[in-house]
């Protein structure tokens, strides 16, 4: 249906150079494909190495940490309070699965746009590309909500990771009296540190806020209390000056059967909840941000090519809407990268 061309740039007959000064080097194309498509493939290969570098550094840092936040616990919120309909108010991985579907479906609509392009069907190309753009924008919107929730509600930043994970078993101390309770600390379980005085954050913590302490209010002044510690500058001059007032609960160690462990002097071993590995926040915002940047760029280029296609630019080229095919390759690549981002951040 299309005539054989070395490039998708149209040159008027009287403007064509006499000598073969383009760099096609002959009639046969390398790998029987156009220059543009081949170079898009090689660009994607180089981009794949960039992402692989990021994801492998994530793996190395995760392997180097004694504990790592459990994704089911970290990514358990859904907009409009939908997660409240689930047990404990946690909807593990539900929202991010929805985000994945958005990207997969937009990949499918992109294939349809390319197919319609091959048939030189302008209306079809515009329609399916429009749906693809909507999918991309929807994904970006979801990511914006996810980030806002993590930063504003759960206080995770590039340098602070309030999602810690226990590496030992034990029992919490009662926050008010400092006595040992029967509330269990379980190895491998992830907890979220809350800010003192953040009223709405208190309920969201799941296992930390059960039973009799519902009527107990944590102090907002930084200091060392019987059952917990509040970060920040203390009245006596100790403490970290610029720290936010995170609440760290205290607990005593026990073995797997639940018997309290003691040190050489016969005292219980008391520990305080710690922040999770700092690298988690930096890696999460860095890598999903870089992917989101790719999605945003993809949406912009999709729009440009959508407008061109609607304006009839590619009708004149008569090459089966090859430009749509090229942006299609890029868009599928964005979906492909998400497969691996989804794998390492959310599934494993």
């Amino acid at each position, binding site marked *: 249906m299309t005539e054989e061309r070395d490039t998708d740039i149209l040159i008027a007959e009287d403007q064509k150079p006499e000598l073969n000064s383009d760099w096609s080097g002959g009639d046969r194309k390398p*790998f*029987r*494909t156009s220059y543009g498509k*081949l170079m898009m*493939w*090689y660009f*994607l*290969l180089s981009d*794949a*190495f960039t992402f*692989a*570098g990021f994801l*492998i*550094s994530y*793996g*190395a*840092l*995760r*392997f*180097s*940490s*004694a504990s790592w936040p*459990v*994704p*089911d616990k970290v990514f358990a919120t859904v907009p409009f309070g939908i997660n409240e309909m689930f047990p404990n108010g946690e909807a*593990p*991985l539900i929202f991010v*699965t929805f985000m*994945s*579907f958005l990207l*997969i*479906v937009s*990949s*499918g609509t*992109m*294939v*349809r746009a390319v*197919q319609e392009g*091959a*048939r030189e069907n302008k209306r079809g190309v515009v329609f399916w590309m429009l749906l693809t753009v909507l999918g991309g924008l929807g994904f970006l919107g979801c990511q914006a909500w996810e980030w806002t929730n993590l930063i504003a509600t759960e206080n995770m930043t590039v340098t602070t990771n309030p999602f810690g994970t226990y590496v030992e078993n034990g029992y919490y101390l009662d926050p008010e009296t400092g006595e040992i309770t029967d509330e269990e600390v379980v190895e*491998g379980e992830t907890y979220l540190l809350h800010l003192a005085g953040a009223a709405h954050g208190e309920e969201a913590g799941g296992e930390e806020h059960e039973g009799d302490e519902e009527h107990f209010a944590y102090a907002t002044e930084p200091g060392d209390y019987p059952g917990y510690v509040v970060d920040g500058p203390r009245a006596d001059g100790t403490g970290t000056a610029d720290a936010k007032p995170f609440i760290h609960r205290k607990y005593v160690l026990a073995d797997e059967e639940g018997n309290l462990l003691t040190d050489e002097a016969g005292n219980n071993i008391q520990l305080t909840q710690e922040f999770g590995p700092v690298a988690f926040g930096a890696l999460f915002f860095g890598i999903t941000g870089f992917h989101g940047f790719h999605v945003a760029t993809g949406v912009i280029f999709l729009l440009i090519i959508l407008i061109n296609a609607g304006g009839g630019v590619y009708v004149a080229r008569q090459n*089966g809407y090859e430009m749509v*095919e090229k942006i*299609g*390759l890029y868009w*599928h*690549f964005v*979906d*492909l990268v998400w*497969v*691996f981002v*989804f*794998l390492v951040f*959310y*599934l*494993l």
Partner: protein
Amino acid sequence: MAQHLSYEDSVRGVWKGLGLLALVTLVEVGLSLLKAAEFAEDLRILIYVASLLIIGLSIYKAYFIIYEFMHMGYEVKGLAMSVLLPTLLLIWALIAFFNEGDAWRKSREKVIYKDQLQAPTGGEVGLIKRDDFLLELPA
């Protein structure tokens, strides 16, 4: 392009492919939730098997996107190989850097262990006593 198929067949192929990818994603999420479930804590083998399955399914998804949606399966073999073979370099990067990360963890644990060791104190410590160092000033 997929000129080997009729238009209707290739359209149907897209929706079938979408369904397949969605199904694989759902299975992955299910496996991920299964391995995080409470009863899985004592079954380390379940966690390993589920993780390996999830990784395998993700690689299958990547293969499907590249070969069907990006039409790599219909390009000439040289193109496919020139794009795909370089990614094999990443296998070594994976092995090397994951080992490296593991080594960082071990040395960090070692530092923590050494930090908590108590230095012996008291007059009995050391072969040379403090007085042996002191030179007497000439009168």
